[in-house]
């Protein structure tokens, strides 16, 4: 965002707010000092609108829109925390838990997991949906890292990190429906994919304990979600944060 870009004014939760004309609603919400929960969004990566946690209500608009992929417009009247939104958000988080196998007590990311944080934020203490207990697998073929599919929420942050920041595009989304999963190469064991530079950026981007460093045991994962933004800025704007 340059200084010269034209700005627009909108209203968020009754509060007026001025942002650059190309800003997303999520950027506008944050610049107003407010927040909505997010999972698939990571600053520095292309937003995809996959997790639907950032849904907001736009007055006079027939449906809810994900703030991370919606461009702010002049005169928009935005609500971020209506009772409807709160109940949908809670439901979405319950579905994340019911869909995979999240056993926090044994998870490498326990205490440092964005899914956990979001569950706390939306006040989820149990799931009203039956747990699916899907049969998934763990890929421990990489020398340094592992991928436990049981904990993957398919946010695709790893896919975008590896493609957009590292430029290796090791990951993609394979299959569909309940069989949908993150795949490495031709759905090979990760350790066999020659394109992987072992940089660890996908592990840094993962919001859960799905991607982890092998040396980390229960509750030892140290996430680095900020790295996507730092590297993106260093690349495109030549601004460094690693002093």
């Amino acid at each position, binding site marked *: 965002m340059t200084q010269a870009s034209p700005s627009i004014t909108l209203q968020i939760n009754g509060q007026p707010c001025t942002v650059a004309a190309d800003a997303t609603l999520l950027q506008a919400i944050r610049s107003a000092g407010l927040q909505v929960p997010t999972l698939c969004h990571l600053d520095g*990566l*292309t937003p*995809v609108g996959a997790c639907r946690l950032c849904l907001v209500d736009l007055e006079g608009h027939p449906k809810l829109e994900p703030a991370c992929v919606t461009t702010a417009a002049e005169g928009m009247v935005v609500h971020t925390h209506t009772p409807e939104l709160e109940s949908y958000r809670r439901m979405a988080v319950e579905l994340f838990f019911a869909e995979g196998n999240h056993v926090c007590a044994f998870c490498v990311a326990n205490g440092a997991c964005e899914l956990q944080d979001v569950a706390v934020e939306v006040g989820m203490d149990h799931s009203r949906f039956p747990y699916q207990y899907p049969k998934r697998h763990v890929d421990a073929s990489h020398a340094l890292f592992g991928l436990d599919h049981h904990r993957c929420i398919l946010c*695709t942050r790893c*896919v*975008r990190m590896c*493609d*957009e920041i590292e430029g*290796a*595009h*090791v*990951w*993609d*989304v*394979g*299959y*569909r429906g309940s069989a949908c999963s993150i*795949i*490495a*190469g*031709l*759905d*090979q064991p990760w350790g066999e*994919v020659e*394109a992987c530079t072992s940089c660890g950026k996908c592990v840094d981007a993962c919001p859960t304990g799905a991607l982890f460093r092998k040396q980390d045991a229960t509750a030892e994962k140290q996430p680095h979600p900020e790295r996507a933004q730092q590297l993106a800025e260093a690349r495109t704007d030549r601004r460094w944060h690693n002093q």
Partner: protein
Amino acid sequence: MATTPDRPGCHALDASLIERLHAVQQRHGYLPRAELQQLAVAMQRPLSDVMGVASFYHLFRLVPPPLHRCVVCRGTACFVRGAERLEAGLRRRGVAFETASCVGACGQAPVLVIDGTVGYGDPGALPEQ
């Protein structure tokens, strides 16, 4: 997955990838790994990108097809006329089959397609559940 949708030509690329996957499947009856790898190299695409597309569509087979192909229709008409019992009968006989949702021959329901030829059963002759 194109993570930057505004990248020029990305949709054109997807379309031609699907065309080429069809051609490979036509030739081999399925998509052999080595062919997927060659295709990715030829198109200068990431392996996982090609595999993501190949594994998404039900029409693409990633494993060799069986000697004979048997498809049970699960469309509404076939369902009403006993497709479930037909499936149960095949399962009991140990016959491997795939399923489809309406093959456009509803008048003959319940429909079974064997090696590309439409056959049909007499609902009365099907075993009870």
